[in-house]
């Protein structure tokens, strides 16, 4: 058994990342061609949206009391079997097959091209597979974008809660600032709206200005972040947690009190912005910008925390007084960390608002902040790849578990508690994915030049 597991691990490990991505792209191709028919054939009634998990769970009878729930379990189990078959046949086999076949050529390819180009090829392939996979069932695309938004939320919160070791629980407040500022701007500039009247600028501007407006939303959120940054000079630990929570409440409450932008009823019209953008050039703008937004967030946070300046953040976590006494300007560093973190929360908010098409203050409560916390702790404090993984897992799980209604939330909070009890370090335990699988192995970096006289083991 152990032997078999090792063989499997070895087999999987030999395939570089790009080959997997291409394999998955091929699998989505298979799904487009054969998914519908195969799904019907094995009794799934078509293409399952989320690997069959949602559909399986929706067999559960949530309204019939405990008896009804128990009685409905067999029907769920009956559904799981064909769903698994579907997943293996449509996704698993093609991915592995194509991955294995392409492993060699891909290795050759990545070891000859310059690294930046290899990186670009990875990104484009990833984007394409998301787009194609998501395009088949419209709802999937939405979830893919939510994943992106949540990655930005989790990794930016990780900067505070993981790297800096503070406890911020008001991230949704900054998200709200970004969401409202950018939505108000886009709706004002590019659509016919009840509040603002006719569009101010021509449609063509929308595609140019959209990313800039996201940045403006981020800047507004970054400024709001100062509301937490300044108190953090004097207070820390659970008191700072209270500050963040009250800032969250204040922002939400302030929005509720501005009647002009809808007050507690919320604000909409962002779907119109999107229509304006696609009327100029018809590409999936939001998917593109979410994708780019995620990349930029990860690069910025990674580069920041690995610079000596950014390591001041980690020094604060380890021993703030020693940091200050050993020349780290802790105030400056805190302001930087909080501004960067809330800036990206604002960008995430802007994307979120346009993905959803509608926002309202009660979207951005402490519940949302706590969800971001769950993602950070699930992935592991101080691990960016952990945040990416956990945001993906969390978002998909939340969508897949939708049939459980309120109980889904119960599961989330239960998981948070269990995490704190049994695995405080999260999935990644403070390490990055690249600490386990090297970039060379993934095919993202060219292997170091072989030393003369040293013969690498035959592959």
């Amino acid at each position, binding site marked *: 058994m152990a032997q078999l597991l090792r063989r499997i691990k070895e087999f999987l490990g030999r395939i570089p990342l790009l080959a997997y991505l291409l394999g998955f792209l091929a699998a989505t191709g298979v799904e487009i061609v054969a998914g519908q028919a195969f799904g019907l054939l094995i009794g799934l009634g078509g293409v399952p949206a989320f690997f069959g998990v949602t559909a399986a769970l929706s067999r559960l009878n949530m309204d019939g009391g405990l008896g009804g729930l128990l009685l409905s379990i067999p029907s769920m189990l009956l559904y799981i079997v064909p769903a698994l078959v579907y997943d293996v046949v449509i996704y698993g086999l093609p991915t592995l097959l194509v991955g294995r076949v392409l492993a060699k050529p891909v290795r050759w390819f990545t070891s000859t091209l310059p690294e930046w180009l290899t990186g670009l090829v990875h990104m484009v392939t990833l984007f394409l597979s998301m787009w194609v996979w998501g395009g088949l069932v419209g709802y999937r695309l939405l979830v893919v974008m939510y994943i992106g938004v949540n990655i930005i939320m989790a990794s930016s919160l990780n900067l505070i809660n993981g790297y800096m070791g503070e406890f911020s629980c008001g991230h949704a407040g900054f998200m709200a600032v970004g969401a409202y500022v950018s939505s108000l701007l886009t709706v004002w500039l590019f659509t016919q709206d009840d509040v603002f009247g006719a569009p101010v600028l021509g449609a063509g501007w929308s595609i140019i200005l959209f990313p800039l407006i996201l940045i403006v939303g981020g800047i507004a959120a970054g400024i709001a972040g100062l509301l937490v940054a300044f108190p953090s000079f004097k207070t820390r630990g659970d008191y700072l947690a209270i500050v963040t929570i009250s800032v969250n409440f204040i922002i939400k409450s302030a929005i509720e009190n501005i009647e002009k932008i809808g007050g507690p009823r919320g604000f909409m019209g962002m779907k119109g912005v999107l229509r304006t953008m696609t009327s100029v050039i018809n590409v999936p703008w939001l998917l593109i910008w979410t994708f780019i937004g995620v990349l930029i967030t990860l690069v910025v946070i990674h*580069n920041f925390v690995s610079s000596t300046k950014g390591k001041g953040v980690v020094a604060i976590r*380890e021993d703030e007084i020693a940091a200050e006494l*050993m020349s780290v300007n802790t105030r400056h560093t805190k302001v930087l960390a909080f501004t960067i973190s809330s800036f990206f929360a604002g960008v995430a908010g802007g994307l979120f608002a346009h993905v959803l098409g509608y926002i309202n203050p009660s979207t951005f409560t402490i519940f949302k902040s706590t969800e971001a916390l769950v993602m950070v702790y699930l992935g592991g404090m101080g691990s960016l790849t952990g945040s990416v993984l956990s945001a993906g897992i969390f978002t998909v799980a939340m969508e897949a578990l939708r049939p459980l209604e309120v109980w889904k939330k119960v599961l989330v909070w239960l998981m948070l508690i269990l995490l704190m009890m049994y695995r405080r370090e999260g999935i990644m335990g403070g390490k990055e994915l690249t600490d386990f699988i090297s970039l060379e192995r993934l095919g993202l970096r060219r292997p170091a030049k072989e030393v003369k006289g040293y013969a690498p083991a035959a592959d």
Partner: protein
Amino acid sequence: MPLLQINHLTHFFGGLRAVYDFNLNLEKGELIGLIGPNGAGKTTIFNLVTGAYRPSQGDIRLNGDSLVGLRPHQITAKGIGRTFQTIRLWNNLSVLDNIRIAQFAQIRYGVVDSILHTRRYRDEEKEIKKRSLELLEVFELRHLADEIVANLPYGQQREVEIVRALATKPRLLLLDEPAAGMNPGEIDTLLKLIQWIRKEFDLTIWIIEHQMRVIMGICERIKVIDFGETIAEGTPAEIQSNPRVLKAYLGEEGI
């Protein structure tokens, strides 16, 4: 002008008078000691000099510039490095990172440089890393550069702390009980090390120590405090024969 000049330094913790009317003129290149029984206020003086606390009264000047009211990192940047009585390294970071971060004040690049990896950023980071490794090399710690600090034995952690203090480019180095927890053999090595870094880095050094052999062995001048007040001052020989000191301090160790 003296390198460090302390006038009438006094500090209260609530009602507790931890330091009272402390005065000192420290000339460049000196190596002096500060001794006194437990709770005498020695560490508090270091904390006042490095800006961790703001003095209730009095003045502290480095090269004539007042340090009172400056934040600790500013004081460190002006050239005062220190170690702590109980080791305060950044435990979950590597040795190299501990040394790198202590050069925070020397960074000239901005955040944007660090995010975009501009030439300026790369040059400075290269320089910081080079200097860190050189420092570690000098202390024969280079092979431990990537080790997590918490995994090092106590003695090496003490050394790393001294290296970290040196990384801040100090002119004046404050050592708070550097020999605490060391055996006689280790202490001898430490004494040589201290004298060596003093020459090598052209430092003025001020040591708090309980162990007499450290103080008597290397200090040129010693100040003794008890209950926050200076009770004696002089060369090791003078101090050793001072009755007040014997009563307050040496008496405690049982003559």
